[in-house]
C-alpha cells in the first residue's frame, strides 16, 4: 500500500490512546515495582530479587507458563482441524461454521467460564452423565484442577486459534493441492508437505494469541482453578488487593510481561521466517 506523507494525523488518535492507556500505566507499574517497601519510600530492585530467589514464586511463574502452553497445545489440536474443516467447507456451510466459531466471542469470558463451572462441578453435567451411565459411584473432582483450567482456557481461547488458521488455509492456492495430487501424492503427503507448512504462519499467530490470552486469563484461572491453584494473575491480585503489597504485585506483573514478551519475540521470529518462506 502506498503511504502518503500527509497521512500521519490519521494515526494520532490511536497513538494518543495507546500512550495514555497502555504506555503510561505500564511505566507507572514499572516505577512502582522499583520500590523496596510497601509504603513506596525507598527505591530498589528488592521486589525482583525477592521474586526470583524464591522457589515458591518461581513455581507460580513456571506453573502459569506451563498451563498456558498446555492450553495452547490443546487449542491447537482441536482448533486446527476445525479451521481446516471450515476452510475447505462449501461456502454455505463455511458461513455457518464461521458463525459458530465466532459466536463465543460475542459472550463475555466470565459467562463462558461460569458455563465450565456448571459443566465440571460436583453436581455438574459431566459428573451427572458419568453417574447416569454407571461409570462412577461418587462425583469425581473435575473443577478446581489444573486440567480443568487447561480445558476451559483452550475452549475459551479457541476462536483466536481457529480464525487465523482459517485465514491462512484460505490463502493457500487450491492449485497447489491439485498439483500435489496430480504429481502422485496422497492426501496425507499433500497435507504434511504442502498444506501444513503453508498454513504455519496462521497457526503460529493463533498459538501466540491463545498463549498470551491464557497466561493472563485471571477470571478463568481463578474460577475454574479455585484457590489452591496459584497462578501469576491471581498472585498479582492477592499481593495487591489482599496483602496491599503494590511494589511486589507490580514486580510480578512486570516479570510475567517480560516472560510472555520473550516467548512472543521468539515465536514471532520463527513466524517471520516461515512467512518469508511462504509469501516471499
Amino acid at each position, binding site marked *: 500500500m502506498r503511504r502518503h506523507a500527509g497521512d500521519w494525523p490519521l494515526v494520532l488518535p490511536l497513538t494518543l490512546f495507546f500512550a495514555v492507556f497502555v504506555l503510561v500505566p505500564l511505566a507507572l507499574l514499572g516505577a512502582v515495582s522499583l520500590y523496596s517497601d510497601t509504603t513506596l519510600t525507598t527505591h530498589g530492585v528488592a521486589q525482583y530479587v525477592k521474586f526470583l530467589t524464591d522457589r515458591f514464586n518461581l513455581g507460580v511463574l513456571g506453573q502459569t507458563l506451563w498451563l498456558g502452553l498446555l492450553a495452547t497445545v490443546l487449542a491447537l489440536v482441536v482448533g486446527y482441524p476445525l479451521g481446516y474443516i471450515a476452510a475447505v467447507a462449501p461456502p454455505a456451510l463455511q458461513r455457518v461454521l464461521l458463525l459458530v466459531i465466532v459466536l463465543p466471542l460475542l459472550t463475555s469470558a466470565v459467562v463462558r467460564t461460569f458455563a465450565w463451572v456448571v459443566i465440571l462441578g460436583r453436581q455438574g453435567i459431566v459428573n451427572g452423565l458419568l453417574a447416569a451411565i454407571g461409570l462412577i459411584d461418587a462425583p469425581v473432582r473435575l473443577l478446581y484442577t489444573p486440567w480443568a483450567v487447561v480445558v476451559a482456557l483452550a475452549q475459551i481461547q479457541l476462536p483466536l486459534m481457529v480464525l487465523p488458521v482459517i485465514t491462512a488455509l484460505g490463502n493457500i*492456492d487450491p492449485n497447489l493441492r*491439485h498439483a500435489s*495430487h*496430480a504429481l502422485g*501424492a496422497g492426501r496425507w503427503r499433500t497435507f504434511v508437505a504442502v498444506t501444513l507448512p503453508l498454513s504455519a504462519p496462521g497457526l503460529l499467530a493463533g498459538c501466540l494469541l491463545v498463549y498470551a490470552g491464557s497466561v493472563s486469563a485471571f477470571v478463568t484461572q481463578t474460577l475454574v482453578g479455585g484457590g489452591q491453584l496459584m497462578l501469576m494473575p491471581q498472585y498479582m491480585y492477592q499481593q495487591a488487593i489482599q496483602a496491599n503489597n503494590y511494589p511486589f504485585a507490580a514486580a510480578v506483573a512486570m516479570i510475567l510481561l517480560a516472560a510472555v514478551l520473550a516467548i512472543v519475540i521468539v515465536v514471532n521470529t520463527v513466524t517471520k521466517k516461515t512467512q518469508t518462506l511462504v509469501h516471499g
Partner: protein
Amino acid sequence: MWGPAALTSAGRFSYKESPVTTRGVALDLDGITHRFGHTVAVEGVSLRIEPGEIVALLGPSGCGKTTLLRIVSGLLRQSGGHVAVDGGIVDELPPNERGAGIVFQNYALFPHMTVEANVGYGLRARGAPRAEIAETVERMLALVRMEGFARRLPRQLSGGQQQRVALARTLAVSPRVLLLDEPFGALDKNLRLDMQIEVKRLQRELDITTIMVTHDQEEALSLADRVAVMNHGRVEQFGRPDEIYDRPATLFVATFVGTTNVLRGKLLDDGTLDCAAGRLPLGAVTTRPTGPVVVAVRPEHFRFVVDAEPGIDGRIELVLPLGPLVVYDVILADGTTLKVTSARGATSRAPGDRVRVALAAGSPVSVFGP
C-alpha cells in the same frame, strides 16, 4: 480393448520410464459431458487425439475448455462419457496413475520448496530412490535449461523461469499426456514467444501427446497441430489451424478465430450476395441453397477494384498501417463497416477516398444459414 485388463496394464506407469524416450500415446475423449449442478459445462465432447499430437482447446472464457482439461487430467470426474489413454479407459484413475501431467496457469509451484524440491516432488511421492530422484531432477532442469537454479525458491524466479520449473516438475514423473492450462497467459509478450518456442521444442523432443487450453487464437493456431474450437461446452470445430481459419464450420468459429467481416443478405442464383449495401459476387461459392444467408469474409480476402468491376461501394474511414500490412476500415452505404487488409503498396489510400470492394479471386468464403 477398453476393458479392465487394458486398464491395469495401460493405466499405470512407472517412474522408471525415461522421460526422454516417452513415445506419444493416443488420447480419446468419448462423449464427455459435465454438469455443475444444473449448468452444463461440457456437453458431448468427443475428440480423438493422435499420438504425439499437440491439440489446443480454444474458446472464450466459460466455454468449458478448462473443465474439459481437468476431466482429462483426472482432477475432475466427468458426469458422463469416457477418457481413454492409449486405448485404456482411465475414468477411475487419479491423475498420476492415468499418466496425465498438468501444468497450471499460475504454475502452482510450491512456494516453500526450492526448485529442486519442486521438481523432485512427484518422484518422492512415489517413493523413488534418492539417487534416482537427484539424477532425474538434474536431467529435468537441464531439459528446461534451468541447471543453475536448483537451490532457488520459486519467488526468486521470473515468470518464464517459473514456467520452466513447472514444466520440469510435471515432466519429471514421465506423464504420457501433457496438459497445459493457459500456459502463456501470465507471461509478457516478448517472453511469451520464447516460451512458446520452448514448449514446442520440448513437446517435439519428448514426442508427448499434449493438450493446451487457451483463449488466445494466435497461440492456438501457431502451436497446435489441431485446434478444437469450443463454445458453450461444445466443440464447434476440430481441425488443423488452416482448416479452422480458411473453412470455419460455424459462424462462431469464423468470428472467434481471426478477424472476419460478416455480411447478411440474400444469396442469388448466380452466386451473388445481395445485401443492403449492394451486391457482392461470391465467385464459385454456390453450394448452399439460395436464400437468406450470413457470409464471413477475412479482411485479407477483400481487394479494391476499379469501378468497371462488380463490387460494393464504400468510403474509407480509417487507415491503420501495421508494418507490412495496411488495414482499411471501409464504411458502406448502409452504415456497416468492412475491414480490408492489403499489402502496403504504391497505391496509398487516405480516409475519405471512395472505393469499390470485391473478393480477391479464389478466396475462401464461408456461407452460413441465417
